[in-house]
């Protein structure tokens, strides 16, 4: 009975899920375009042009400007912001507020495909944001090296490294304000202490560990290597890549596991 139909869904199911989510996104197209374009321009002006006038210290190897230093981290942060929004709100929405996942679950789709499709959609959303960021950065003269182009996949990888948030969201049955707590206790400290707007080494050593744990620090440093590096030993660059991959894949595997159990009541 393995009909053509089932075969197609087996192969393309995750893409159908992504297609559904993209169709939904059209509803918010206006807002998304405005924030995607507006955010990098605002941030780069504020930090790279405004704050930079106060920053005279040496932030990178000879001649690296503060704008160039801060830009890769801003790009990675943008991907993380979009990712975190989808991991937390998007996932819980699909299970609870607008339970499209249970609807999908009644079709030939598997739980794994539902989560994979959501991942594809999130990657597409992050890619749009990161590409726009990159173009704006170029316009600001914030990317010295042609290798800076690899900040696009690096940014997406950094966003994906926050996928354990999706696993967390998939475990929530009752909304008791977990997200604001998550934002304040996890996301905000990680953003502040991840060496995004100042080098991590400026912090006292007893606070630097926050940065070492944070995928955002690894992503920002990786982006800097691409944009104006190298500024660190090669082994550390490899650690960044491995660390991000472990978080991205681990978080996703965990989400698939939890979603499979949740949908099979």
């Amino acid at each position, binding site marked *: 009975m393995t*009909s053509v139909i089932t075969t197609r869904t087996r192969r393309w199911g995750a893409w159908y899920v992504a*297609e559904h989510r993209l*169709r939904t996104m059209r*509803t918010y197209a206006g807002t998304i375009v405005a924030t995607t374009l507006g955010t990098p321009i605002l941030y780069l002006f504020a930090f790279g042009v405004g704050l930079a006038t106060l920053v005279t210290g040496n932030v990178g190897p000879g001649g690296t400007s503060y704008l160039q230093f801060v830009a890769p981290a801003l790009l990675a942060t943008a991907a993380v912001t979009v990712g975190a929004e989808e991991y937390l709100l998007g996932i819980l929405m699909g299970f609870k507020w607008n339970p499209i996942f249970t609807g999908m679950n009644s079709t030939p789709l598997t739980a794994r495909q539902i989560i994979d499709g959501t991942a594809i959609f999130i990657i597409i959303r992050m890619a749009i944001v990161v590409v726009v960021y990159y173009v704006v950065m170029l316009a600001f003269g914030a990317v010295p090296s042609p290798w800076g182009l690899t900040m696009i996949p690096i940014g997406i990888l950094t966003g994906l490294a926050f996928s354990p948030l999706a696993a967390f969201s998939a475990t929530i049955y009752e909304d008791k304000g977990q997200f604001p707590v998550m934002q304040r206790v996890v996301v905000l400290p990680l953003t502040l202490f991840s060496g995004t707007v100042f080098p991590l080494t400026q912090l006292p050593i007893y606070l630097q560990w926050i940065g070492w744990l944070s995928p955002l620090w690894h992503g920002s440093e990786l982006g800097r290597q691409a944009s104006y590096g190298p500024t660190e030993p090669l082994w550390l660059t490899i650690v960044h890549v491995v660390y991000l991959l472990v978080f991205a894949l681990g978080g996703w595997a965990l989400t698939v596991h939890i979603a499979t159990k949740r949908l099979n009541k």
Partner: protein
Amino acid sequence: MPAPVITATALTKKYKEFTAVDGISFEVAPGESFGLLGPNGAGKSTTMRMVGAVSTRTSGDLSILGFDPDEFGPEIRSQLGVVPQADNLDTELRVRDNLLVYGRYFGLSRAVIAKRADELLDFAQLADRAKAKVDDLSGGMKRRLTIARALINDPRILLLDEPTTGLDPQARHILWDRLFRLKEQGTTLVLTTHYMDEAEQLCDRLVVVDKGQIMAEGAPAALIREHSSREVLEVRFGSERNAEAAEKVEGIGRLELLPDRILIYSEDGDGALAEVVRRGLTPITSLVRRSSLEDVFLRLTGRTLIE
């Protein structure tokens, strides 16, 4: 008789200590309209999820269209239409778009889906609401849209979990009419309900379920014949006096004493009422009606105070 499309044997589902479905067995023939009738918490929805190949059984055997859902979930689901108890339409999409995205999950081409979506919107009497937001639809319209969505893959079996719960009478009748048409077209329907009238209207055959077990099985009329009398006399004496009155009407027929009224089962309801009056009782209200599945359920589940 053609091979059944659903065969459940000693089907069981346990959640830790709690047994939601406790060894039920039934078969559904192609083209049949089969119902699971029972109160909330009887295990109907759990059974439906197992039949829908989205919930793994704890034990027993289950075959849907000849396949074991443990191994062939996607294959089975590709031939089912599912109308869940709680609407799960995508409220961020418009009416017609809901059908379009859903059709894709069955691997159908966009052209086929577009054609079917228009036909189904006609069938669901929603053609003029194609571009409306889902949240702007009434409860009955959402239900009809969910049914239209469930039909997008031209399913061999349509599963409906409490299809009319929460709808007003008019919306229920519109929905019943649509389901009747599907039945006439030969679609196999499996539905759960706790509405006795719905079960009588829509089901060729049903099982009465309580506490995860099957209490009785048969056609609605046969179940009524078997477990109840032809007519029922309902008399009310006021909640304070019902119990006292019940003692005096002993022997006229089988009695059910409910908090608000007494039911007297008799082949001749008017005759029973005459006998009540002859015994010197004056009920506040009296009603003679035909026996229904409600009476069967009352009898079978023993929710009675005086037998």
